[in-house]
């Protein structure tokens, strides 16, 4: 099986990439739904014009929200939509008939879209970074160690998001539709991940609550590493906790999937 996987994964990624290109119109519209950081950027720059807020001046807000835009684009997965639809329509059958775990193909579909997301979001973020505020670029990390740690945090955030998204999708085998559950997840993500506003602006008790959940590790940690807001020890501690969430979320995904697939009714045809 590992040998087969070695050869199958590149082919699955290639096909996923071609598929993402085929759906490029829809893909662009989908990306536009993730541009909330730009709205928040405009809002908080206006607030910061009156003076800095929670240690953020206008340049810091610019760097934070543009980094947030990139993290959101590069560490996201929509496997829930695909899994939920395929369970309801019975199309999951075709994936289950192949001698490779369906989660690999969902993973490849999500990974394959990242180059296109990067090709669009990174130039947009860079142009905005230097056109809005010439000094905001100085906030970003440039040293190889921090950039490497940012890469690790981004990859782990993607892994957790994919696992949560796919777990909620697999719960569609118990619920009639998992989309309601997904909406609840998204609401908590918006609030507690640092996507809408930096967690440093929250009251201390809410920061403590957020720290007990995986959400800050999905968005806030990679952003704060990239904009150099964390000392090295805090970064390493954050990455260690993040890898714990990754292991836990992957384990839950595998367990739920293993149990839930016995309930698959393969509707239709």
């Amino acid at each position, binding site marked *: 099986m590992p040998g087969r996987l070695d050869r*199958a994964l590149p082919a*699955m990624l290639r*096909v996923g990439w071609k598929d993402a290109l085929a759906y490029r119109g829809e893909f662009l519209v989908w990306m536009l739904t993730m541009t909330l950081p730009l709205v928040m950027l405009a809002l908080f720059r206006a607030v910061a014009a009156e003076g800095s807020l929670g240690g953020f001046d206008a340049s810091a807000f610019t760097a934070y929200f543009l980094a947030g835009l990139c993290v959101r684009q590069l560490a996201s997965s929509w496997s829930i939509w695909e899994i939920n639809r395929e369970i309801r329509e019975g*199309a999951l*059958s075709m994936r289950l008939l192949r*001698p490779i775990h369906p989660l690999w193909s969902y993973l490849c579909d999500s990974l394959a879209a990242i180059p296109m997301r990067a090709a669009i979001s990174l130039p947009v973020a860079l142009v905005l970074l230097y056109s809005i505020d010439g000094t905001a670029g100085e906030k970003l990390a440039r040293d190889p160690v921090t950039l490497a740690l940012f890469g690790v945090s981004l990859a782990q955030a993607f892994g957790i998001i994919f696992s949560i998204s796919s777990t909620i999708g697999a719960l569609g085998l118990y619920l009639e539709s998992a989309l309601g559950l997904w909406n609840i997840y998204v609401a908590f993500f918006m609030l507690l991940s640092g996507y809408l506003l930096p967690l440093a602006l929250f009251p201390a008790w809410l920061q403590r609550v957020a720290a007990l959940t995986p959400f800050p590790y999905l968005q806030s940690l990679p952003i704060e590493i990239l904009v150099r807001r964390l000392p090295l020890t805090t970064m390493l501690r954050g990455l260690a906790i993040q890898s714990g969430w990754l292991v836990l979320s992957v384990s839950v995904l595998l367990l739920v999937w293993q149990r839930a697939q016995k309930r698959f009714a393969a509707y239709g*045809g």
Partner: protein
Amino acid sequence: MSVIVVRDLVKEFRVAEREPGLWAAARSLFHRRYKVARAVDGIGFSIERGERVGFLGRNGAGKTTTLKMLAGLLHPTSGLVEVAGFAPQRRAPLFLGKITLVLGQKQQLLWDLPPVDTFELNRAIYDLSDADYRHTLDELIELLQLGTLIKRPTRQLSLGERMKCELVAALLHRPEVLFLDEPTIGLDVPTQLALREFIRAYNERHGATVLLTSHYMADVTALCPRVLLIDQGKLTFDGELDGLVRRVRPNKRVIVRRAGLPPETFDLPHEGLSQAVAKLLAAGDVDDLVVEDPPLEEVMRDLLSS
């Protein structure tokens, strides 16, 4: 040697029930009623390597549910299923490499990409060597007369062309056991004929076992010397197609044509058939006389409406 063994197989589904109307919809939020529907009810049969078997029954009789259990998509509620020596529900990669399931109403082809991309994907997933892949693909393209169609986006292909490409995608790994669920549904007659010929040729060339469901009796007559009949989840017949016909319509059909008159049709019992025919001929003026089994479509109509 039996390649498929099924014993006392049962599949039950828990189905939510709700009265029509807004009030019932609101009430079902708090109190949902379920009933257990038994889709397959203790069936048993075995199929030898290389056999072509037709699986007949009306809609909802349990045919597709059985096929899905044989292919490992559904977990049986109870009973034994063994295909090529494996318990299908465990979905071992080795097992999945030996079977294929073609669902006439589901597709594995990637909609916006040419079929050749799905074929390439399957080559990698089934870990086929380049030589095997090329050889099988060329053979299938030739048998199905696909030519360069495989390079056009799937969405631009006709239903028949798509179905042919579905078969290629399903057979690239040279499965030993083919489960075909209404593979000719919605296709025009020439394409149905081409697919039938193809399935027969594949079975004969590779000694593959075929279990086929179809509502087109021509598929079953042309392909399946043996049929299984399922009704309300129970197996009600297992044997040769002729035997099924005799059981449902024990009489032979005699058609007599006389000059200037419309043809007359008589359904006569086997016993005393020759005397009856002799009597008809003796009546004189007979231009033509045909003795045949009743058309299979009528047999199935009787069978499925009874």
